[in-house]
């Protein structure tokens, strides 16, 4: 690609006197901003003409890899296809130009979209109500835990400050609990990769009256369905706690199960995963929170406007309408089939620590043949050379060489077969030419980066970069 030719910072393309904007003339007369209000020196923003700006950001984009470029089997991230119609609907001026504080009767259409989406989410999850306020999955987790804590506090049950989290949980679970002022109790996984009931029993015996909730994702981060969920939910409910469902892994359940039916009381959904809204390089997302009947009053004020990231809400509803009741139920089974097929086709060369049916994703513990010294990191980097995004690596923390693969329902057998043959090829290269794999990637705009240098001597702005040079 073109890192060498077009790798400049926009600041390095700036020349005094260039401009990339046009504004109407000031026809208001003499209203000058008083000098006393003003900053002493103008912000040193770039001065560029419009073509330069367009060329810069167009070329930069070609150093990126998105779902539209190719297969993106990033586990737990559900990198599904982002339908183009959703983008157009979200940008419709009849919605995009609405001020959130306009009188309610002037925004009826927008409110209808939010209400319809909430209704759909209730139907798909078996919960009673949703708030669209949370801006992301992690924000949703925090919101959901606030609901739970608020519920306990309302009953004068101030002692319930502990949250049980499986050792395989997403890193955000314990972090969200901590931010919500809750303490973590970690429950261990069995050799089968599922929540250990004896261990859970012991935690409950020890901490029962102080347990606020248990947070789970099901299927869990190993892609395994927690089949004891009815028993787990009962144990937690019996000790007075609530069940929280981390919706990061909701995709395989479309058409198969509903969190509400599994005994969960509160959950969040990542619209940017299950409901196909684009990840945008890390955001904006949307993390609606659903609650069982009776918990609605505890939904907290975590952002100002009732529709949250409304343009994301628009996309998600457009997706639901496109699929309809007929096809939305096919999402889970197809995603699950794709994952199991990859697993079965590769488990002879990659270490599969827990055999059996997985759901939308599964985890290898690196290459089967560990003698070559080729690590999961190396495999991931070599995949980039072949035009694939890498799977999620070194998560979950249960294994040393975790390689977590999630194909989604949108990938064809052809794409998957090519991926499988490349994965096998890499396993072969690890034996015949390990250095080739260890020094990968070779075909990308840049090679492996020096993370240590970046952290030891942080340069995070252009200004620091200039100061550092001189």
């Amino acid at each position, binding site marked *: 690609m073109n890192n060498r030719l077009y*790798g400049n910072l926009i*600041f390095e393309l700036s020349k005094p006197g260039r*401009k990339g*904007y046009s*504004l109407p003339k000031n026809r*208001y*007369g003499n209203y*000058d901003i008083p000098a006393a209000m*003003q*900053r002493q020196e*103008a*912000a040193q*923003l770039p*001065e560029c003409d*419009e073509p330069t700006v367009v060329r810069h950001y167009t070329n930069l984009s070609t*150093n990126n*890899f*998105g*779902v539209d*470029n190719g297969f993106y089997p*990033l586990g737990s991230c559900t990198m599904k296809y982002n339908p183009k*119609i959703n*983008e157009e609907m979200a940008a419709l001026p*009849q919605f995009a130009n*609405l*001020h959130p*504080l*306009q009188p309610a009767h*002037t925004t009826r*259409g927008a409110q*209808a979209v939010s209400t319809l989406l909430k209704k759909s989410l209730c139907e798909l999850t078996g919960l009673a109500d949703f708030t669209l306020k949370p801006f992301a999955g*992690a924000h949703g987790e925090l919101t959901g835990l606030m609901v739970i804590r608020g519920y306990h506090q309302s009953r004068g049950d101030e002692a319930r400050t502990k949250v049980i989290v499986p050792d395989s949980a997403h890193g955000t679970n314990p*972090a969200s609990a901590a931010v919500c002022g809750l303490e973590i109790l970690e429950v261990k996984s069995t050799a089968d990769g599922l929540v250990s009931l004896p261990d859970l029993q012991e935690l409950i015996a020890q901490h029962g009256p102080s347990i606020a909730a248990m947070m789970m994702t099901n299927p869990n981060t190993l892609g395994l369905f927690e089949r004891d969920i*009815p028993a787990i939910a009962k144990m937690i409910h019996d000790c007075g706690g609530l069940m929280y469902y981390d919706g990061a892994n909701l995709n395989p359940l479309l058409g198969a199960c509903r969190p509400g039916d599994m005994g969960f009381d509160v959950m969040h959904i990542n619209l940017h995963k299950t409901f196909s809204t684009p*990840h*945008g*390089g*890390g955001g*904006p997302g949307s993390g609606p929170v659903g609650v069982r009947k009776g918990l609605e009053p505890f939904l907290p004020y*975590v*952002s*100002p406007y009732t529709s*949250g990231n409304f*343009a994301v809400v628009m996309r998600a509803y457009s997706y639901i*309408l*496109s699929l309809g009741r007929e096809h939305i139920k*096919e999402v889970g089974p197809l995603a*699950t*089939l794709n994952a199991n097929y990859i697993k*079965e086709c590769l488990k002879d060369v990659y270490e599969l620590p827990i055999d*059996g049916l997985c759901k939308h994703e599964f985890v290898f513990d690196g290459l089967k043949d560990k003698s070559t010294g080729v690590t999961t990191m190396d495999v991931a980097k070599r995949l980039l050379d072949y035009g694939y995004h890498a799977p999620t690596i070194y998560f979950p923390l249960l294994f040393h060489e975790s390689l977590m693969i999630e194909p989604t329902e*949108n990938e064809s*057998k052809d794409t998957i077969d090519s991926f499988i043959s490349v994965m096998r090829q890499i396993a072969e290269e690890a034996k015949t030419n390990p250095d080739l794999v260890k020094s990968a990637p070779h075909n*990308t*705009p840049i090679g492996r980066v*020096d993370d240590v240098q*970046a*952290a030891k001597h942080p340069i*995070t702005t252009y200004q620091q*970069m200039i100061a550092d040079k001189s």
Partner: protein
Amino acid sequence: MNYKFFPHTQDDLQAMMEKVGVQNLDDLFAEVPDAVRFHGEYQLPEQMSELEVRQLFEQLGAQNQQLVCFGGAGVYDHYMPAVIPNLLSRSEYLTSYTPYQAEISQGTLHYIFEYQSMMAELTGMDISNASMYDGTTAAAEAVMMAVAAGKKQNTVLISETIDPKTLKVIQTYAHFHGIQLEMIQQEDGITSLTHLQSLLSQHKGSVAGVLVQQPNYYGIVEDYTGFADAVHEEKGLFMMDCIAADLAVLKTPGEWGADIAVGDGQSLGIPMQFGGPYVGYMCCTEKLIRKMPGRIVGMTSDNRGQRAFVLTLQAREQHIRRQKATSNICSNQSLMALFVTIYMSLMGKEGLREAAQLSYAGAHYLCDRLLASGHFTLVYQQPFFNEFVVRYDGDLDALLQKLEANGIFGGVKIADDQLMIAVTEKRTKEEIDKLISLL
């Protein structure tokens, strides 16, 4: 299974199921207890063709009223240059994930580095993170950051002139995080330094930080002389919540001696879109870099000796710290950060100032006309930027209805007789004159 987003043919399905060892797709869920299996039909609409989807949204869109916007209160109707939606729709940006694999994510990492540089310039601070959800949650994160940075200090003082919506979000976070909040009183629309000083001595040793807003909720440009010194004397952090675009002209948080600057970047051309997505920003002094929540991109080099960008200082982040984390943020608002980066690249040093000057002039022109009508008075006798609060001597609801009937959203009503009005560079003189003619 025959559907436009699903590539599986019958033969594919058959071959794959065979490999997996199942007879049908239902068998893939064999381990799921029947009690929790969903066997019914979802009560959802039937699938729609793309044309039908479009028609439905257009019908719903027609139920919204397109109004000329004089509302603000934290969300402003600025102009979005045509370049931005065009570039933002590039799939390479739109459909990528967080830039974990630096080798194929230089596009994202590169623009975030530019974004951080621009935000640091705009706020006059040393550094910036890679962006946050929005301004209100950024402020709440700043409050938690101040407490985490403090030595057992658990109280944060907040000015009464802050946007009440921001305050409510902070109150939610503070309640669950166990942070004590105290309000600094206002006098005629500005934060009382005297009251701040008395609160600081009253809560001696326990104040982690002080948060004020600029321009404040009422659009007033406050004079924060002496604030940073007073706060620093008590070993607290001085935090400012500022409307991003206005900082192109106004004295910066850096100049006021702030330790943390936060706010919303929506004013940098982002459409109002009924509440979001926008973009929050957070900047701070270099000293606080390891306390700052959120993603940070740093410069480094690759093994070919090229300049490269990478997510850095991740040891601060939730996925490493887990329950020791002081923030649970694990993403940024990347695409919106790209939005404002392109906006600032186009507008540059002069354009942002010129737009701010236009907004300022338009607001003052409108204010003068309103006062001249004899029906309005300024609620606060203070300097304002592009937003101001007036008192109306008639029936305010009737007036707003009349404006609305003529296609105008006249402003945000903040009391029975008080209207808060904002003007941006997007409002034309004709629109303002029309509003005046309807009084």
